[in-house]
């Protein structure tokens, strides 16, 4: 696709938008290259959804400028709409209608005649594994099926830029993988995807660049590799047999390895960040060395794991404050419980 070479899909500078006292966007800058997945990573309330709504022409910014494929999102909204498609966080199809009806409706709104819209609907339902559910009302779909029909609706007329607002929040692992596969296929076709997510591993797996958003601003930007090396590519979680040995373990890990160490609320648990900038070893080698040091010092480790840093840890590293405020976490739990 020629548009892959043509530079930026999105350019935003100094976007601001407030809702009363809340400054959802506080000077957001963004440069999204065309032809790849770009991840907006941040906790609830960071301004990700507001940013997507502004870029998709649903919301006017209070200040700043944004262009999508060179078209201003405020003054040339229609030109932007002709090239983008949005899969919102909540219902983006009509729950009262069946899968087929939803796709036919959108097909006709995109200018297809009825037979063509019908044909396109069947094609998409088949490709997304929804043929059996085609005649059922969308409100009776499972979470994974809902996301699939949402995305199918978004690519009815394949857009140049697809916004996916937290496409996997609340999904079980299998449905999540299905969504990832679909996103990869969409990008391989040449569509640019702007994906918002709360999960570092999702951004890491899909995105070729990531912007970390906090309080309506981008606080870090780069490839997943760059981002992780600034944070540390891994986290070692240790559980000691004897809580009394924890101070010794903390000292050992902190001085010998020279990595940031954190004491957990659990008196036997300790966490160390590994694979960061300051080391010539990769995460697993560092973790192995840590285990060796501990065992030499006679500290018994009952449980050990090496994982990717969580969003919380990324945030802690970048901002010195935890990512998810207690309030938002509770809302999230409620959302997932629905």
């Amino acid at each position, binding site marked *: 696709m020629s548009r892959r070479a043509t530079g930026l899909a999105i350019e935003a500078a100094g976007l601001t938008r407030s809702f009363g006292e809340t400054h959802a966007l506080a000077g957001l800058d963004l440069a999204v290259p065309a032809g790849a997945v770009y991840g907006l990573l941040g906790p609830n309330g960071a301004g990700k959804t507001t940013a997507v709504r502004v870029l*998709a*022409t*649903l*919301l*006017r910014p209070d200040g700043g400028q944004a262009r999508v494929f060179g078209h201003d999102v405020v003054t040339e909204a*229609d030109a932007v*709409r*002709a090239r*983008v*498609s*949005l899969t*919102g*966080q*909540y*219902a*983006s*199809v*009509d729950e*009262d*209608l*069946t899968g087929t*009806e939803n796709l036919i*409706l*959108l097909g*006709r*709104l*995109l*200018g*297809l005649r009825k037979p*063509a819209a019908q044909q396109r609907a069947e*094609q998409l339902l*088949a*490709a*997304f*594994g*929804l043929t*059996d*559910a085609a005649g059922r*009302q969308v409100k009776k*779909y*499972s*979470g*994974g*099926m809902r996301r699939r029909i949402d995305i199918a*609706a978004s*690519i009815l*007329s*394949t857009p140049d830029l697809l916004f996916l607002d937290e496409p996997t929040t609340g999904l*079980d692992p*299998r*449905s999540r993988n*299905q969504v990832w*596969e*679909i996103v990869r*296929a*969409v990008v*391989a*076709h*040449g*569509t640019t995807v702007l994906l918002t997510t709360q999960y570092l591993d999702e951004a890491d797996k899909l995105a070729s660049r990531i912007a970390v958003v906090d309080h309506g601003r981008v606080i870090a930007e780069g490839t997943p590799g760059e981002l992780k090396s600034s944070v540390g590519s891994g986290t070692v979680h240790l559980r000691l047999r004897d809580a009394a040995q924890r101070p010794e373990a903390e000292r050992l890990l902190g001085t010998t390895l020279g990595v940031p160490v954190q004491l957990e609320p659990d008196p036997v648990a300790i966490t160390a960040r590994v694979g960061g900038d300051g080391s010539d070893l990769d995460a697993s080698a560092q973790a192995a060395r840590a285990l060796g040091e501990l065992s030499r010092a006679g500290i018994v480790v009952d449980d050990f794991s090496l994982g990717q840093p969580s969003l919380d840890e990324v945030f802690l590293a970048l901002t010195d404050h935890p990512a998810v405020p207690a309030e938002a976490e509770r809302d999230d739990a409620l959302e997932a419980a629905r």
Partner: protein
Amino acid sequence: MSSDTATSTGRAPTVYVPSTEALATVLAPGKRPPRPSALAASLAFSWRALLKIKHVPEQLFDVTAFPIIMVLMFTYLFGGALADSPRDYLQFFLPGIMVTSVVMITMYTGVGLNTDIEKGVFDRFRTLPVWRPAALVGMIVGDVLRYVLAAVVILSVGLVLGFRPDGGVLGVLAGIGLLVIFSFAFSWVWTFFGLVLRSEKSVMGVSMMVLFPLTFLSNVFVDPSTMPGWLQAFVKANPITHLVSSVRAAMGGTTDASSMAWMVAWSALFIVVFGTLTMYRYNRR
């Protein structure tokens, strides 16, 4: 999630595995069809409104049961007192209660829009490159069908109870036509409130506050000549009064040109003022 699998036909459930080839086919870059005309887009949205009625027929309760209750209640409540008999009263009263019921039903346009937006599907509609008012026009066209249904229900109940319009079939059709035109225009008041107000409940609240005085302080139930002067002034200016006079005249086989002119003027005003306000809010939200 077990519901994520194929319907239980006794066979082993098949799990959806995204196939790169299948996805690649549907992603094949077809030429973008030309942008649909304003009419085509509005028709597509009206189709959506009809499908919603088909899938959720319970929502027709308010255009069938409610009007029947209105007619029965007021005919027998006021009939004896205000005219010689309920049957005599019905000749005067039926066009009025038809207007009252249908105009009251218009508020559900605002309520419906509010819940629609709450759910999020309008976000998708608003990112489509189509004529902007189409989503709302389509919705109201669907509602117009409900208005017609309510009017027909009321007419049927009236005919059973002894309503005999002098205007005959044509007069009755003309009367319903006028009512539908006005209701279509009046619906734009509610789309505006549906967009401005936060919840379904507040839309209901505001609607009732507007509708009660508007329908009761009119010539629907009684002849305004018995009212105090200040109230007569209000009743005379009330668009519902003009509408009722026009419908009454049409069903009675005559024409009330001045009322009709007022009614048309009011309808135009509602569309121009509230249509504009609605679209302004719709675009800026």
